């Protein structure tokens, strides 16, 4: 069911979108020293971003439209378990602080633009680098598609039924990303985050005030959830699932190509480390956004869109805003959600495209591609990825898309041994890491395949029920944790066994991992191959 068309809200969203599109094209001139014809310049913004820009860029990149629509939808649907997003975005910073700093240093020293670049240089293995590259691209694609659910939720709430606005939004996005590269989302992220912060601040004060306070909200949510067998607290059998999902998602987050891109675009190691204590400000916002799910329950919000059996719960936040706020404010909030989807979608597409150009096109298709050609390939692939994402979201069921993000995490965490442990040790043999990846990935995909949900027979959820393996329990565990443990065990056992096979050469030296701020790499220089 699509509600009546609201012209004021629609007009505000369109106006905000137009401003952002102009900004995106203007960004091509921002802090530019040379032409954009290299992956360094187009895809990493010349590695010149300081603390403030990096904060907006990484924050805008990691806290995506998924955050604004899917996390509250999760609390709306399943109660306390959905709050895992908060411990997840707390745990990530202490876990990755030094990892990200080492990653920045070694990549800066050697001109690596992607995690796969690093793996090739560190382990001297083209196969391992290819596995890492493919993993990153495959995990990112559904994530880009997922950003569209935020836009779609807004469009449905404003009262437009068709898919054409998605196509228009993404064609414009593809056009300005093509010309401006990473500078576009970095500039747009400023606008996006200021809007989102204002929106959230107003919402978490005004809506509880209207509804009668947080105690009314939590009591209303509890009674609504109890009817579905959930609650505002976890049950004992949910503990393991909650912990492993939060921990695993935290471990996986900085393995995504778009997160690596955000880190590598910083201009010094200090900026990366400092941001790990500044980025939690976004988690606070996320926590309050999550509670909008309970506000929607307490306010008896009915989702729009979807089908009667599986309503599109991603629309609850837009509907809540529509019901509780004057239309002009709801319109601004909707504009913020739309822009909030465009920023991460652009960075993800750029990061995955860089990975393709650097780690698949160059080594396997055209060995002697010039930096200019490499950048062009990256630009074109970023467009293909975005349009592919629209195709996926228009063609597939929406409820399916939400679990995609969790499945992406399960996939991407399999490169943890090669990348994260690789930053600290060369003890692992390259073939042991590759076989570990195969086993971990195989096991994870199998576990995902046999997991049902109410709407899908396979790939239903990233929470694996231990009862599937005959255990008499309701306990679930995050699939990725099981996969990555298997991956690590195999890699550890095989490393001594494969000692007689030649090891790859390591082109990095221990000091590279601490480099603070080397002179900038000249634009257009060839990557260390």
């Amino acid at each position: 069911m699509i509600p009546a068309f609201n012209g004021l809200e629609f007009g505000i969203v369109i106006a905000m979108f137009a401003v952002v599109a102009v900004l995106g094209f203007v960004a091509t001139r921002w802090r530019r020293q040379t032409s954009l014809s290299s992956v360094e310049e187009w895809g990493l913004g010349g590695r010149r971003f300081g603390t403030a820009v990096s904060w907006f860029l990484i924050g805008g990149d990691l806290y995506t439209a998924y955050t604004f629509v899917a996390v509250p939808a999760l609390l709306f649907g399943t109660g306390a378990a959905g709050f895992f997003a908060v411990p997840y975005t707390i745990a990530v910073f202490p876990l990755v602080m030094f990892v990200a700093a080492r990653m920045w240093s070694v990549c800066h020293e050697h001109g690596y633009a992607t995690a796969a670049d690093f793996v090739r240089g560190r382990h001297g293995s083209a196969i391992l680098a290819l596995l890492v590259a493919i993993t990153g691209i495959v995990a990112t694609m559904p994530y880009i598609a997922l950003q569209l659910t935020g836009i779609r939720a807004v469009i449905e709430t404003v009262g437009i039924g068709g898919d054409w606005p998605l196509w228009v939004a993404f064609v414009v996005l593809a056009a300005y990303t093509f010309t401006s590269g990473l500078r576009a989302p970095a500039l747009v992220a400023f606008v996006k985050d200021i809007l989102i912060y204002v929106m959230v601040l107003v919402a978490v004060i005004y809506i509880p005030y209207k509804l009668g306070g947080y105690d009314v909200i939590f009591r209303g949510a509890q009674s609504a959830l109890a009817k579905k067998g959930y609650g505002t607290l976890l049950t004992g059998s949910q503990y393991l699932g909650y912990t492993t999902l939060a921990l695993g998602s935290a471990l996986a987050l900085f393995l995504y190509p778009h997160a690596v891109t955000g880190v590598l675009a910083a201009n010094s190691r200090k900026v990366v480390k400092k941001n790990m204590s500044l980025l939690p400000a976004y988690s606070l916002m996320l926590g309050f956004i999550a509670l909008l799910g309970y506000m929607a329950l307490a306010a008896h919000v009915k989702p729009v869109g979807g089908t009667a059996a599986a309503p599109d719960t991603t629309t609850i936040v837009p509907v809540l805003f529509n019901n509780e706020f004057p239309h002009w404010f709801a319109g601004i909030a909707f504009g913020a959600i739309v822009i909030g989807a465009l920023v991460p979608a652009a960075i993800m597409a750029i990061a995955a495209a860089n990975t393709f150009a650097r780690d698949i096109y160059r080594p396997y298709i055209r060995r002697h591609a010039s930096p200019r050609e490499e950048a062009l390939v990256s630009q074109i692939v970023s467009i293909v990825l975005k349009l592919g994402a629209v195709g996926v979201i228009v063609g597939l069921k929406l409820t399916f898309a939400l679990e995609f993000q969790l499945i992406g995490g399960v996939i991407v965490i399999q490169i943890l041994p090669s990348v994260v442990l690789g930053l600290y040790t060369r003890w692992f043999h390259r073939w042991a890491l590759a076989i570990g990846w195969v086993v971990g990935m195989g096991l994870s995909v199998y576990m995902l395949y046999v997991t049902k949900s109410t709407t899908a027979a396979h790939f239903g959820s990233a929470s694996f029920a231990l009862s599937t393996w005959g255990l008499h329990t309701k306990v679930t565990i995050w699939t990725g944790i099981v996969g990555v443990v298997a991956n690590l065990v195999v890699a550890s056992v095989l490393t001594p066994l494969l000692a007689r096979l030649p090891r790859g050469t390591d082109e990095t030296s221990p000091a590279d991992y601490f480099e603070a701020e080397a002179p900038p790499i000249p634009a257009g220089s060839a990557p260390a191959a």
Partner: protein
Amino acid sequence: MNGEPRPRLRNRWVLLLLLLPLVAVLVPEFYNFSSPSIGGMPFFYWWQLLWIAGVAVCVAIVYLATRRAR
């Protein structure tokens, strides 16, 4: 970095501060209760929200302590 050796971190125990937030939010046994509630918000929620500030402080201290080394 080719040149001066990096200074060693004297107070390595400060790194334990990074463990604190992990333990605080990854073990639901510690906080899966409704009381004490603040302003109607159950303990489960405000405890985890509070640790967002906690993690920022812990990471900031570690950042300041390790600025010269590592």
